[in-house]
């Protein structure tokens, strides 16, 4: 892998950019791999990277039905944070946040991770108590969280509507200063380049169509590019988890729904942090190219269409404008929709399945991007050793039927109430 650096850019300027190498190879699939990862999104690529980097495994393949990073990694609102209330969640995401802080150097690929602060707004005394509770839970586990007064919120984000007669007047906030945003494509590309340079085969345009079984155990996959044998197989396909799992006869505690998001035309800097709310369901940040990145709740109905209901977006934008009225004359220039796998407690599923040699990583709801490094790390551990890492042990597939769910919002097995 040719290293990236400012000096390299200068060299490229002088030699007409002739010395750059492809960021990853385009290999033919081998007949057999020690571990196959189904799904070349951020999580699958991160898993492959850590399998090679941390566990020293080389005979690994990532199979991607389309182009790598082309799923939800390629279309999300890029928020990175670990400010969850429940311990298994905040400890997991915090491990990831620490990885985020060194990721660009680790990958020699600038993922543009910007810890500009992830802030939850509170709109009532009750909200502020709930924020304090969340912050206290985090702080007692060694994770940064600070309450903010009205004035501090207004100072950080001067364009927030701070009027006291607003429908949901802002009373303060809880900020995780080490959280923020990153460039989503760069994360996928950085992990891909890193994994590839360590010998991982990333095979694009290769769709898994079935599993090869020996008795109950999985020993390989059938794909549009032929049969490939495997020691272990890890599913890592987000919204299509149910679809792929069904090929092994498995049903999952997951429902696929659409999540819409958008970006506006680029403007000069106006939003400094990542703004979220305890009461309203939208999130606002500004990309490095100047566009305002905006999203809200998922469309609460099952869909693989990657198209949502326009009024869901209209409702989210109404909430966004109530928070930041200055958005009014900015123009939405691009929308996108992903298929999110909503799990029945809002927490992910990373671990074994009842089928020997088959593992699952999914159920990320709409919080998958921030988890990319931690998901990759723990899934790599799980695939390499056959057993979960302590951080993903709570996220077992069987926890639902056992009764050990991790339900951040307390909504239960009805994704619509989340």
């Amino acid at each position, binding site marked *: 892998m040719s290293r990236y650096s*400012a000096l390299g850019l200068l060299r490229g300027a002088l030699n007409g*950019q002739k010395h750059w190498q492809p960021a990853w190879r385009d290999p033919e699939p081998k007949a057999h791999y020690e571990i196959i990862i189904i799904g070349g999104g951020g999580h699958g690529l991160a898993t492959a990277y850590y399998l090679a980097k941390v566990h020293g495994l080389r005979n690994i393949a990532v199979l991607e039905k389309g182009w790598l990073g082309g799923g939800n990694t390629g279309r999300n609102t890029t928020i990175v944070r670990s400010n969850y209330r429940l311990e298994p969640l905040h400890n997991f995401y915090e491990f990831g946040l620490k990885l985020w802080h060194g990721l660009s150097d680790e990958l020699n690929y600038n993922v*543009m991770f910007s810890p500009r602060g992830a802030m939850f707004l509170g709109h009532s005394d009750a909200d502020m108590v709930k924020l304090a509770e969340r912050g206290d839970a985090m702080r007692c586990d060694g994770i940064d969280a600070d309450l903010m007064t009205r004035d501090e919120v207004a100072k950080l984000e001067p364009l927030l509507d701070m009027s006291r007669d607003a429908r949901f007047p802002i009373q303060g906030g809880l900020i995780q200063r080490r959280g923020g945003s990153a460039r989503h494509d760069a994360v996928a590309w950085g992990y891909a380049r890193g994994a590839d340079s360590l010998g991982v085969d990333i095979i694009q345009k290769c769709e898994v169509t079935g599993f090869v079984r020996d008795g109950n155990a999985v020993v390989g996959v059938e794909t549009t590019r032929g049969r490939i044998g495997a020691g272990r197989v890890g599913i890592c396909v987000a919204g299509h988890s149910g679809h792929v799992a069904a090929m092994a006869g498995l049903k999952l505690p997951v429902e696929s729904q659409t999540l819409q998001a958008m970006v506006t035309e680029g403007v000069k800097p106006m939003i400094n942090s990542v703004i979220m709310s305890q009461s309203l369901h939208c999130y606002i940040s500004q990309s490095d190219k100047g566009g305002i990145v905006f999203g809200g709740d998922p469309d609460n109905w099952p869909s693989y269409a990657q198209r949502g209901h326009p009024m869901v977006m209209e409702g989210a934008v109404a909430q966004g404008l109530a928070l930041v009225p200055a958005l009014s004359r900015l*123009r939405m*220039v691009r929308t996108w929709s992903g298929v999110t796998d909503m799990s029945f407690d809002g927490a992910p599923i990373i671990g074994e399945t009842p089928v020997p040699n088959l593992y699952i990583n999914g159920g990320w709801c709409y919080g998958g991007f921030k988890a990319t490094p931690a998901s990759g790390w723990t899934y790599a551990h799980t695939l390499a050793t056959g057993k979960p890492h302590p951080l993903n042990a709570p996220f077992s597939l069987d926890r639902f039927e056992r009764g050990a769910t991790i339900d951040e919002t307390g909504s239960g*097995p009805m994704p619509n109430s989340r």
Partner: protein
Amino acid sequence: MSGPLRDPKGATISFSFDGKTYKARAGDTLAAALLANGVGLVGRSFKYHRPRGIMTAGIEEPNALVTVGEGGRAEPNTRATDVFVYDGLIARSQNRWPNLSFDVGAVFSLAAPMLGAGFYYKTFFGSAKRWMFYEYFIRKAAGLGNAPTKADPDRFSQRAAFCDVLVVGGGPAGLQAALEQAEAGKRVILVEQDSILGASLIRDPQELDPAWVAATAARIRAAGGRILTRTTASGYWEHDLVTLTQRLAEPGEVPPSGVTQRLWHVRAGQVILATGSIERPIAFAHNDRPGVMLSQAARTYVRRFGVLPGKRVVIATNNDDAYKTAQALQDAGAEIVAILDARPDFSNAAVGAESAGLPVWTNAVPSSVTGARHCLSGVTAIVDGQSKHWKADLIAVSGGFTPVVHLHMQAGGSLDWNEAAQAFVPAVSRQNVTTIGGAANPDPVFPVTPVSNPKKSFIDFQNDVSLADVDLAWAEGYRSVEHLKRYTTLGMATDQGKLSNMAALGRLAEKQGVSIPEAGLTTFRPPYTPVSMGLIAGAGAKNAGAHVRRLALCDVHAAKNPIWQPLGYWFRPRAYPQGQETLAQAALREAKEVRTGVGMTDVSTLAKFEVSGPDATAFLELICATTVSKLAVGRGRYTFMLREDGIAFDDGTVWRLDENRYLLTSSTGGADRMATHISYVRQYLCPQLKVSAVNVQEHYAGIAIAGPKAKAVMDALIKADSPRHMSTVPADIAGVPVIVLAASYSGERAFEVYVEASIAAPVWAACEAEVTAQGGCLYGLEAMEFLRIEKGHLVVGGEVDGRMTPMDLALDKMLNKAGGYIGATGLSRPALAEPGRRQLVGLEAISGDIPEGAMLITHKGGSPHGHVSAAAFRILEGGSVALGQLKDGFSRHGEELIASSPTRGQEARVRVVHPHFYDTAGERYRD
């Protein structure tokens, strides 16, 4: 550059650009008016700050982006080609400092060799803090216009419409189709994004009877059709639902009605797309400069606006259409110095032009242009392999036509490749949509291979993406069209790739050695053109789309100036301060009065259900996890409800009003959820039961009267003996029929009076009079919290947080032993009985005040074992107490813990106790 076709006396409208005042003619776009006034330099490009002018005459404009308007209605990134001048229009250029002519940012051009596609991924390494340092400057350089900071003074409205046929595009094909459908009796809506109808006929009026457009529009309207101009079909959704964005005022214009834009949701029986095509540029070096214009745009400026954009003109084309531009410009007084036709042979149009004396060159492709900041100075081309040069101030280019297929694709359609036109045309569609006219039949072209230096040959003008960037992305392995697009950022600017997508695909296909259709295609998504956020939000922007739910008695409360508390969409009185009382003082006074005398509060928001019928009891024993059948008529009990997974999700009371008639109450916060749950169970799970379950939450207002004197108050009100605790009677208060429930949330002897909301006021007045006569007062939610916490009553959303089982909440003794209730099977899940679960505990302070929400830790720096769900104090004796959830809490009574809130800098030392601090024996309920 003002053309001879334009009568200067006709320009009567004043506008300003970058502080200078100019005149425009009615109907001018800002771009036309600027050109008429000789303004060629209009903006600076995003990355390299190259000088930019006006390239098109339509919504596909990539370069002429300005901010129009002032204050809260200023619209940044407005295409000068898509705003119609009104008197007093104020426009400013963007992305330049200190001004457009002398922009310091132009130094980025010098660094261009280092700033190619993806350069930022290869550098700026170091700590995240260091990246944020670089990022500060990158963010300042990024973005084009500035967002307004003042509030938006105008309104945006929404409208729904239904029609049999929606026709998109008011050109000849669309008008004809709309006419036929309307006169066949169909309900027709025709939309056109321009301010006038006609489209291609505007630039080529010679092709039809000049009056045809107006006459056809009149006939459409006469047949009942609706025509909307300045209206863009923005998105095609499911089942032929199309969203339209309509301008009622231009950017920055004060809208006469106060409404500046309107969003339509149109459900159509079928959709006809007559959206035409967008002309393609040609790639050559410096093809982004002022003085490089699309051919049909140049023709439009002459024919529609009477403006000549250049005097010495080169035409560069690969098709016949541009010859019309040559004719139009020559007729307007320009000299056509060369027509560069990329085709090897003379077409009929070329022959015609040559016979008319125009200089036509075949096998001719432009390779570069030179220019000043505001116009061109010369054009160089490769003609039959030789370099040739002309002095010129304008080059009008036509690289072919890209059919506008966006809505067809959004509707789930597929595309065919039209080889002659080198373009994608609509093929099959999943929905009821057809494409007609130029969009379905684009003109044939000759494919042009660029002969220029790829570094300066731009394909995405707005994001400064050149052919060299595409080549670089290819070399680095970003080879799928989506990788290419994201790595180079082409197609991601405000013009959404309308001029760049095909050029990029062409280069990609060339690199891959495949045909363009094999190279791939990006996804088409709404919006077709960028849409104001204010329009999407509509009226909801003011109140976050959240209506207010008012108590039936809200005016009565308002007259007392309470402190209001939001609870979901409700507003409820939190306390009724007297004099200079603070919230805390008022709430303490109110709570003490309830403990020692009598208090009165509004409990109208509680969920309430009337359940009746022969199967009412059986139905309730599905919903409630306690028994119900054991209730005698006239008696009630506490109950709770489980989700199907066995988790407690609500609690309340159930009262047997009659043999087969019950009143069920449950929490305010869970009311909508419980109503849906009850309806689902009744309608879907047991439709065969003979039961009716009616949501009467807002039908009944509710008044609670609590305290040792409550019975005296109630006796006086109903003029009878009040029911004993947990009994119910119907009664009359002030002549109004009510239901009286003897229930207590506060821990004192108490009653809840339910009365039909519309006639609640006199009942409230009577109650208040009696309470006052007994020396009592009103109390609000804050006091209610103190009272119930001290008593140990649970609240949904607090202790009942959607994660606790009845066992965790010490309610398991109340479970219906016969089972059969919803949630019984979920309770049998093994982990729900394992040690380590959070359990309900009480906490009393040893030192400090217990902060609500604090974590329970065993030692400093320890991980939480639980948290404080509700904190209060002993109302009469003082002393901080709380309820909480604690791991294995039932077995830890007596243990000392720390309640720690690092975020608030507060902590208390606490002891784990039973979660009841007041009257554990229930003495207060006895008379």
